[in-house]
Every structure is written in structure tokens, then in C-alpha cells.
């Protein structure tokens, strides 16, 4: 009796849970709206001088933790509303560009495809799920006397106005 009843019981119990989870995801997708805010901040990190751009205050902790440069200067910051599954191309210094395609919203994360391109050559192509209103860093390209650090932010709610304006 128990041997036959238990699987049926588990099915009866798990089906509503699965449906509830699916419903929650549908509601989440609707809540994400038609567009997502994508913000790209391009920072020149170098060892010439010693300064931390006040406009980068929000990024101080990860920068200090991840890098050892003495100077961090915001070169450009750009924020756009991008429709889901549409590509947005951001021009970067040194003939590079960053292509961002927001693919969807799931479990409180914005799913992005991010491509760093030098000329016509894709240097890196990554698919990631970023915490809503979080920041992802891409670094390495040389520029002038330093290195470019690209902070990629994405959020389904308009990002609060910050001091991050060059």
C-alpha cells in the first residue's frame, strides 16, 4: 500500500510546487518590463600619479580588492535603456567596442551576452547572469599608459543617479 501510494503522493505534492514555481517565473518576467538599463563605465587604471576618481566611489571596494594600480580615472560613462534581446554597442577607447545583448530576466538576475571587440575581432564573448543592478568587470585592454577596466552594470529598475559622470 505504502509502496504504491508514496510515488503517487509525491507526484501530487510536487506538481503544484512546480506550477507555483513556473508561475513565479512568469510573474518575474512580466515585472522585468520591456527594457533593461545597461550602464558601461570605462576606467583608465595606471600607475601614473595617485588618485581615485570620486565618480567611482561605488567601485572602490572591488577595485582595491582586485587591482594594485595607484590611479583610477573614469574616461567615459554611458547608460542606455536597451530592449530585451536587442544589441547595444558601446564604443570604447582604442578602437574597441562592447556589444551587450540582454537576453532575459530570471531568478532576480539579468541574463546578458557580452562581447568585447577590437576592430572586427571578437576578443571575448561571455554569457552571464548578473544580479539585478549589479556590476560585472572586464579588464585587460591596454590604453595609453594604463589598462582599461570596463564596469558593466544592468538593472531592470532605473539605476539611481550616482556621481558616476565623467
Amino acid at each position: 500500500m505504502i509502496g504504491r501510494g508514496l510515488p503517487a503522493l509525491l507526484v501530487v505534492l510536487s506538481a503544484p510546487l512546480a506550477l507555483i514555481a513556473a508561475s513565479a517565473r512568469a510573474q518575474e518576467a512580466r515585472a522585468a518590463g520591456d527594457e533593461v538599463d545597461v550602464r558601461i563605465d570605462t576606467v583608465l587604471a595606471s600607475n601614473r600619479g595617485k588618485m581615485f576618481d570620486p565618480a567611482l566611489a561605488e567601485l572602490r571596494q572591488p577595485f582595491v580588492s582586485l587591482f594594485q594600480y595607484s590611479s583610477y580615472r573614469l574616461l567615459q560613462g554611458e547608460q542606455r535603456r536597451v530592449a530585451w534581446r536587442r544589441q547595444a554597442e558601446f564604443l570604447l577607447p582604442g578602437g574597441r567596442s562592447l556589444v551587450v545583448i540582454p537576453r532575459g530576466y530570471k531568478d532576480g538576475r539579468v541574463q546578458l551576452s557580452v562581447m568585447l571587440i577590437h576592430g572586427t575581432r571578437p576578443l571575448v564573448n561571455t554569457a552571464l547572469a548578473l544580479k539585478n543592478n549589479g556590476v560585472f568587470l572586464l579588464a585587460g585592454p591596454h590604453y595609453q599608459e594604463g589598462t582599461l577596466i570596463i564596469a558593466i552594470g544592468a538593472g531592470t529598475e532605473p539605476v539611481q543617479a550616482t556621481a558616476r559622470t565623467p
Partner: protein
Amino acid sequence: MSCRETRPLLPLFFDGELEARQMRAVALHSTRCAACEDELRHLERLQEAVASHVSALVNEIDIDAIWAGVAPRLGVRAPSLGRRLRAWWDEREFGWLVRGPAYGALAAGLLLGIAVWLQDDPQRAPEIVRVDNSAVLDSVQSSVDSVALVTDEETNTTLLWVLDDTAEVDHAADQWEGPP
């Protein structure tokens, strides 16, 4: 990229499973081609239709009825801690000699708790906003010599370091703090 080439890639584009050039090409093509744009919207509508159908099904489920059928099969449940304490208390013949001071102590404890709560000034204890930049990387494709992935534990910020020539490797090695 033609429609014939694009069509089979649309579901993969929808799921973000294409490589960089194809992702760009499909995104670009779909902005210019009404038919492929319609196909993408069709995929989107299909997903929404499934989601909305599922939502409707969930709303129709009478959880109470299911539970009424399930509960008898679960057998006898152990009484809760509160019930067991109550039963233990009722079994004893303490009388008001013991109950009086006990209720008094309980009341005093409640008053003390309320007093502490009222003294707590929310302005003096600002809410700590914790930054969470956590990212889950599904895939990384690269045409460069070296790629490094590091995470700052404090803010969960993920760094993808791309070195596109050998000269940069030495330079970056000097500057990179290294994995925590």
C-alpha cells in the same frame, strides 16, 4: 545573413546559446527583417502563453482539498512543542502558588522587551546596504592568449581579465592582486 540562415538560429538566439558573431548577426538581422522579428516575437509569445496557462492552472488548484486528501495518509503527527508543554503543565497540580509568580515573570519580560524596542532609534542604527554584484558565468569564449576570472569576496564582484597580447601578460601579472 539571410532569413534562411537566420531562422534555425532564432531559438538558440532566444536562449543565448550562439557564439559572438552569430549573436550579433542574428540581432542585427532581426532588427531589419520583419519576418524574423515576427518569429522572435512568436517565440516570446509562446513562452508567455505557456507561462500564463501555467499561472491559470495554479490559480485553479485547491490546495486545501489536496491537503485534505493527503493529511490522512501521513499518519499520526507528533504534537507540537507548545502542545506538549501545555500538556505537561496541565498534568501538574502546581496551583496559583507557582502559576502566579510565573505569569508575573512573563509579564515583566514582555514589558522589558517592549521598553527595549521603543528605545531603539532606527536613525541611530542605519540599515547596512550590502552590495551584491554576484554573477554566474554560463560561458566564456575567447580568441585571446589568456583569460583570468577573479571574484572580490566582499562584494561578489566578478572580474574577467582579458589579455590580448603577450606583452600585456607581464604587465597584468604585475598589477593583478591575484586570487583571494
